[in-house]
């Protein structure tokens, strides 16, 4: 049985989530191919070919694929799936968008956000914002699965898979790309960062969020996150949101500043290795999951933290 991993990339670079999804795929089958669908993706395909354990890299290009249009990806994937038992892709906004569409076209039940591969037919996934874990058995011969990448280790490098072009399919006749606003940042990506510094509603304004959270993140080489409350209030852009409906992160170190710890926020960060909470409310629920809690107003605690980090050679 063969598995097709649909790569996560931005047409220029292969994302780390792809390597983690390959690890999940290898837990199902030894025959793993990777599809890189996009536009101008030669460099991405070359990176994918180096993943250890990958049998073959398939490439396909069109404008609509480069824009990650779900209808175009699905139209390309459905015929390809004749040669595969399973499709795996990271549970990014791209993966979540096209995978269920492919599943419906194949008349199979999609399995979302898989945390663990129990066996080739059985998977563990979070439900109720991660407050429960569901083990599901699928009776479908073909499966379409999105993978929560933070739950898997990245596959190693050192491979040398062959690269082969495949048909792009008919595209998306009823869907047109208009524009995109992608936030450019020199900071690491939130989903894959080793350290994340997040700010909450306590910041009170977008200016304060920038003034307090960003210098601390930069000092630590960290990505910046935010609670839903901070995003809803306009203190931080939507793609900063960590939580059930935003991004799920599992960094080595997560620093929550002025975040109370609503259930839906905890769902997005509770698998972090070490959690630090700074909050002036000693009863804030965030302290129940924090390894290190500092009960203090961020206005004094963050400058002190900056100083202590400088003193420690950071």
């Amino acid at each position, binding site marked *: 049985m063969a598995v097709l991993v649909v790569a996560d990339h931005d047409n220029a670079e292969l994302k780390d989530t792809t390597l983690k999804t390959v690890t999940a795929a290898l837990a199902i089958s030894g025959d793993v191919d990777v599809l890189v669908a996009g536009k101008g993706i030669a460099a991405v395909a070359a990176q994918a070919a180096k993943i250890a354990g990958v049998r073959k890299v398939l490439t396909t290009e069109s404008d609509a694929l480069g824009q990650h249009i779900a209808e175009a990806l699905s139209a390309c994937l459905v015929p390809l799936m004749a040669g595969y038992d399973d499709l795996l892709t990271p549970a990014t906004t791209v993966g979540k968008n096209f995978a269920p569409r492919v599943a419906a076209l194949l008349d199979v*039940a999609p399995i979302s956000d898989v945390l663990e591969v129990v066996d080739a037919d059985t998977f563990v996934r979070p439900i109720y914002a991660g407050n429960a874990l*569901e083990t599901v058995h699928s009776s479908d011969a073909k499966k379409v699965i999105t993978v929560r990448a933070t739950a898997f280790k990245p596959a190693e490098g050192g491979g040398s898979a062959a690269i082969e072009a495949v048909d792009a399919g008919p595209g998306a006749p009823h869907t047109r790309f208009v524009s995109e606003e992608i936030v450019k940042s020199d900071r690491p990506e939130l989903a894959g960062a080793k350290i994340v510094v997040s700010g909450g509603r306590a910041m009170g304004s977008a200016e304060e969020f920038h003034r307090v959270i960003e210098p601390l993140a930069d000092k630590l080489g960290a990505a910046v996150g935010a609670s839903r409350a901070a995003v809803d209030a306009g203190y931080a852009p939507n793609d900063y949101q960590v939580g059930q409906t935003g991004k799920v992160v599992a960094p080595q*170190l997560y620093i929550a500043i002025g975040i109370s710890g609503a259930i839906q926020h905890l769902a997005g960060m509770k698998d972090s290795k070490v959690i630090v909470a700074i909050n002036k409310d000693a009863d804030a629920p965030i302290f129940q999951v924090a390894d290190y809690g500092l009960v203090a107003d961020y206005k004094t605690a963050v400058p002190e933290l900056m100083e202590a980090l400088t003193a420690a050679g950071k």
Partner: protein
Amino acid sequence: MKVLVPVKRVIDYNVKARVKSDQTGVDLANVKMSMNPFCEIAVEEAVRLQEKGVATEVVVVSIGPIQAQETIRTALAMGAERGILIQTDTDPEPLEVAKLLAAVAKAEEPRLILMGKQAIDGDNNAVGQMLSALLGWPQATFASKVEVSGDKAKVTREVDGGLQTLEVDLPAVVTADLRLNEPRYASLPNIMKAKRKTIDIKTPDDFGGLGEGHLKVVKVTEPPKRVAGVKVENAAELVAKLKTEAGVI
């Protein structure tokens, strides 16, 4: 233009789900149930389209137990015109839900289906995409802005890294993300008015029936618990612990 809005009755988002001790699922007995928050946003958007004169009729459909009538009633109080309940005491999986909704769409012939991007119980984030595939319609998921003009909808989507704007031909399926709008509270007169609006009670068999299901839940368990750690006195102690004890900086 008719707009169809599928809605789901789920555990209230403020209630913490508790796993049953026999690991068969989550305990929903005597738990407050509400409309799924994302569905509420979809209803609000549909009602706003109606208020702008873009939508002519907003029809709400729910699949669930008889109590799901209350969920439909909430949508009617927000301004939707009529409701359809497909009554079932089973908990159909996303593929089955999408098939029933596709049959409803064929009967109702809406130009736009607006729905939540995911339900906060199963967290699948799948039905909208599957429904649009089954109907052969375009999809615009995770919407934070929807503009309908003529036979097209321009939809801004929340994606990793920022926003993407697509234009789709109608009919289409649009799924709502959190920041599409802030749903209104229904006024008392509108709640009273909603009591007189029609809810048609149907069965799955009226829409092609429910299949066997492709997924079987083996068990539902509690996630590993994190235990609260220690409180530190100040920033210097925090940095010392992160450096020597945790080794993360």
